[in-house]
């Protein structure tokens, strides 16, 4: 009996060992590194000293602040994806083509997207040329060279690229909703708005939650590519984000311990959202099962 109780662990052991080696060990090393600092070339334990230094670093605080501002892209991305998905679900003419077109940006590499938009948003770039050509020259701006516009410009590109994923997710869910639900609502006299509010959105609730959490994780810990290619964190740290800060600390300034401390913080924050996402998925699975 005792043998049987432990038997599953025996089978799990190889996978567990592998997981610990691949994920556990680096995380533990990272945490240890974040609690040390070199002194005379030898790493010494400094407790939370590195974390205290971080919260006195204005560039780090700016990076955190920018990551928080990037969270504003989440409701916009989710809302836009929802609207577009609903329109496509109406089977408007050419909806398959639109669906493919909307999803295409999501498939493109971030580096390529960043590079193309860098050219588009130059002061003498395509967008400003277009605005000048149509007599809207007053709207032409230094989109990436201005400290007040650079971050919103990056946010626009993030939304442009990420929205397609949401559209495909929402559309896939809508297509699995039984048509009778919509028919019943129509028979009951629901207008278009009521149909969306009382049928479409409730049916999409779990997918919306999932996409929201994924989008939050993206803007907290997956925006390095956009920023690195489009602005390198400038002008004057106006688009600095925590991932880029980690990269600079570790590889440009040779301060691995501080880079590790930021990484631990980032891991914790992202971990909270990953946990949330898992809980939502669990709830969703339970909902489906019942």
């Amino acid at each position: 009996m005792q043998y049987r109780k432990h038997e599953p662990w025996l089978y799990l052991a190889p996978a567990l060992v592998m997981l610990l080696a691949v994920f556990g060990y680096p995380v533990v090393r990272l945490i240890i590194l974040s609690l040390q600092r070199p002194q005379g070339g030898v790493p010494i334990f400094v407790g939370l000293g590195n974390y205290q230094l971080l919260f006195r670093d204005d560039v780090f605080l700016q990076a955190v602040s920018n990551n928080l501002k990037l969270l504003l892209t989440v409701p916009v991305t989710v809302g836009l994806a929802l609207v577009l998905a609903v329109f496509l679900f109406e089977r408007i003419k050419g909806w398959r083509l639109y669906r493919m077109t909307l999803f295409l940006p999501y498939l493109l590499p971030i580096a390529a997207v960043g590079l193309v938009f860098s050219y588009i948003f130059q002061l003498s770039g395509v967008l400003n040329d277009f605005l000048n050509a149509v007599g809207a020259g007053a709207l032409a701006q230094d989109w990436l060279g201005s400290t007040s516009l650079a971050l919103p410009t990056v946010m626009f590109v993030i939304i442009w690229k990420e929205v397609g994923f949401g559209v495909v997710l929402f559309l896939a869910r809508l297509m699995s909703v039984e048509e009778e639900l919509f028919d019943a609502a129509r028979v009951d006299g629901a207008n278009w708005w009521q149909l969306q509010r009382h049928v479409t959105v409730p049916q999409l609730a779990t997918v919306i939650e999932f996409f929201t959490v994924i989008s939050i994780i993206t803007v907290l810990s997956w925006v390095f590519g956009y920023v690195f290619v489009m602005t390198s964190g400038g002008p004057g740290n106006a688009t600095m984000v925590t991932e880029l800060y980690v990269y600079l600390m570790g590889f440009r300034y040779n301060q691995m311990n501080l880079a590790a401390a930021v990484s631990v913080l980032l891991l914790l924050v992202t971990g909270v959202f990953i946990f949330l996402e898992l809980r939502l998925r669990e709830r969703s699975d339970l909902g489906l099962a019942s």
Partner: protein
Amino acid sequence: MRSTIRVLSLLALLALLIPACAAPATEVPAEAPAEAPAEAPAEAPAEAEPIKLTIWWWGEQEAPGAEAWLNETMALYTEANPNITFEAVLQSTDTLIPAFQSAAAAKEGPDIQYFWGGVWTIENAWTDAIIPVDDLIPADEWDHYLNVFERQYDGKTWGVPWYMSGNPVVFNPELFTQAGLDPNAPPATWDELLVACDKLRAVDVVPIAGGVKDGWFGGWLFSILARQPHDSEKAFMQASVGQASYTEPKFTEWWGRLQELKDRGCWNEDIGSLDYQQGQDLFVTGKAAMLFGNDTFLAGWAETMGWDKIGLMLTPQYGSGELADDYIVTAQGWGITSWSDYPQEAADFLVFMHTPDRVNAWFEATGVLPADDRLDTSLITQPQLQQVYEWDTTRGGPNLENFIPSMMDEQANFAGVQLLFAGDATREELGQLTEDVNAKWREQNPDAAANFENWIE
């Protein structure tokens, strides 16, 4: 009985396996006597231990032709030393430092690593990632190497220079003439530069091209402009460790001068949204008249625009320090890693790179000047490159970016120049920013600050 047989079988198997697994090096001498003369076994390359030297490098980016030269040099070396082979990995600009730092953390990676000069080399001595090379290279060799001082710390030399990379102001004589400027007497003073800007603007030519979006040009501008009130790079090292303040007027003056150039319309208007390379292209395509350039690119630009459209001048002077009228030049070079099993062999190869034949071949392959005075100067036929060679050897001065903390370069110079061009910071604010960044660097990295202090001495 059965177990005894098992043990005996195992021993027999081991007896068979051990010789089979022996290193090849032990096998070679057994065959060698039949082929090599007994009198000179040491010289017979075929008998030597096979050695593979791994090289991580950068340089093709700024000296096109470097890769072909390096491949040829490695092949020639292997021909002369058949036991030595190479694996060369060309790094990108963005991976050069991160890749090496990862290697240094693991103490595994290249035997020979490319380094920019100054702090880019020395900081790796502080972390024991590279070794001093003084004793690995014959003393008389050092007499021929240029700019060795950039790699010296604590009485030792931590690398070998390879080629020179200087910062002239490049101008287009045709556009100068178009604006009524004399290409034979380019601006020598700051006031003359401002007048030149006015005249070029008057004929719709962008006076100076630049791009600061990716930051790098901010560091160049610091090195080119901030030096003029000072006598030595040590002034900046002292300010970085807190022995002077970056808010003092002589340290903030360059911000004011840069602001002056901006206010006078000297730069392309889109400088804030262009990378350095894109700004440089404005000059190469004939849309801008001047460029704070790099002499390693001259031969490449000449292929595009012709030598007749390339003139060189020193940075117009506003200051009176000893650094004011020098020619900024650094030597890009090599270091030998502390984990290499073959430091002497690596050093021997670096010496081979400096043989007169290889030095001349370098110049012919790249059009870039080697960091060695054994170059056959008759090979330099272009007057512009003759000018660079003269500046390199008679009035070379330090590249200041190589003598400050990289955090200051990034967070004060790169970011500060961007803020200035965005119109978001004044000279005083930028001086304070530089001071604050250095104070933060000292607090976050006391070990490096202490090393910097030692370096000053």
